[in-house]
């Protein structure tokens, strides 16, 4: 674990994080990374405040001594069957700051920071909504690292996304 980083500490984002989030860098210039970065910089805080009362949205920031190094979010997704909402969790966001990308976390199993954040988001969602059985996320079909991350964490079913450039990945949670 020579190069492993200390476990980033998660907490709910607050208005005081605005300046740091406005400078958050998680894109190397790929269009799907640009979209996420732009969202985090310009909209994520306000969007979270607006959505929270309606969807249980939780925007989490992950801090180390270097400041906010990752962001994650989940909420109750608009997953329906026969027009009826099915209890579920939608993972809307997992983003790692560029200088923390691919680095490992000094905890058991040495997950990469992205894996660690997704694990934490899943755990937080389960704590908020213990009865949820379905969990899903959307990612660009071109985003191979994101697809690998989701698959490694059990999001193994695929469903179409309204935007053909994207795909949904679903998993089932334990009771």
């Amino acid at each position, binding site marked *: 674990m020579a190069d492993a980083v200390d476990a980033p500490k998660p907490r709910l984002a607050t208005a005081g994080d605005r300046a740091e989030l406005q400078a958050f860098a998680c894109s190397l210039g790929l269009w799907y990374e640009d979209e996420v970065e732009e969202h985090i910089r310009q909209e994520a805080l306000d969007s979270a405040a607006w959505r929270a009362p309606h969807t249980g949205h939780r925007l989490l920031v992950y801090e180390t001594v270097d400041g906010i190094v990752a962001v994650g979010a989940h909420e109750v997704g608009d997953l329906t*069957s026969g027009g009826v909402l099915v209890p579920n969790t939608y993972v809307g966001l997992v983003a790692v700051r560029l200088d923390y990308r691919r680095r490992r976390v000094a905890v058991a199993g040495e997950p990469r920071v992205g894996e660690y954040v997704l694990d934490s988001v*899943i*755990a937080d969602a389960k704590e908020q909504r213990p009865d949820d059985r379905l969990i899903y996320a*959307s990612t660009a079909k071109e985003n191979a690292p994101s697809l690998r991350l989701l698959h490694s*964490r*059990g999001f193994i079913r695929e469903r179409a996304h309204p*935007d053909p450039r994207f795909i949904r990945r*679903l998993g*089932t949670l*334990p009771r």
Partner: protein
Amino acid sequence: MITARPLVSKREILETYRPGREPADTLFRSLRNNKLVSDGLQVTLPQAGGRLGGSVRIYCALSKDAARLARQGQSDEARALARVANRIEGSRPVKQLLAMIEETVRAEPVANTEDALASVFRHLIGRRRDLWKSMAELTTRIEKERAASKALASQLSFYGVVARIGAEGTVEIVEDRGSRRVMLPLAELAEQGLGQLGDAVAIHWESFGRGRVLTEAEPALRLDPTDYRPFLDSRLELDADDLAALLDEEPTVEIRQPLLTARP
């Protein structure tokens, strides 16, 4: 920017022509024979597996306005508007848009019905960033034609987003570029697949005289580049069998860090 959709289905034209009545093909043939609506454009709908699943026709949105004028007895004005609609249907942005619609339905086949096509507009077309340029060109041109038509002067339009859902079964819609607010019954919006927070809505008011006003709400388009984030779009409908199979399977996701996240 929120704007009306540039293309509509036959059903939507008929619903404007005869509000509250079941759309009938005979009525539409009559409108077509009298050149009171445009010629329309054919969209090929493939089935799953790439086979052709049939086709439907879609029309420049001005055909809805032409149908409205026809109902009001303004046939000459309706024909003039239908001619403008024909020209727009032959324009480059519409051809680009059609190609993209067909590409979209190839990627996600839809049922061979007009309602399905309307659904394609609501759920797919308005969310493709690569469509926005064509859409913006088209909607701007259509709005200019509407504004230039004296016959449409008694019609008011309002574009906004669903900002609040009231416990009393109403929805509050806030104007996109202004501060006006409108309350509408949730049940009526739900009929159009609307009524969720953030939905873009177009509302048209048409004077019937002596204090009577017809209010028509329909899905609108958001063309602001920052409006839509596909990774935040969680709308997903599972059929009952699919859902049952998913719920029946062994958990695929493991809870690895149950105590890590700080409580609020």
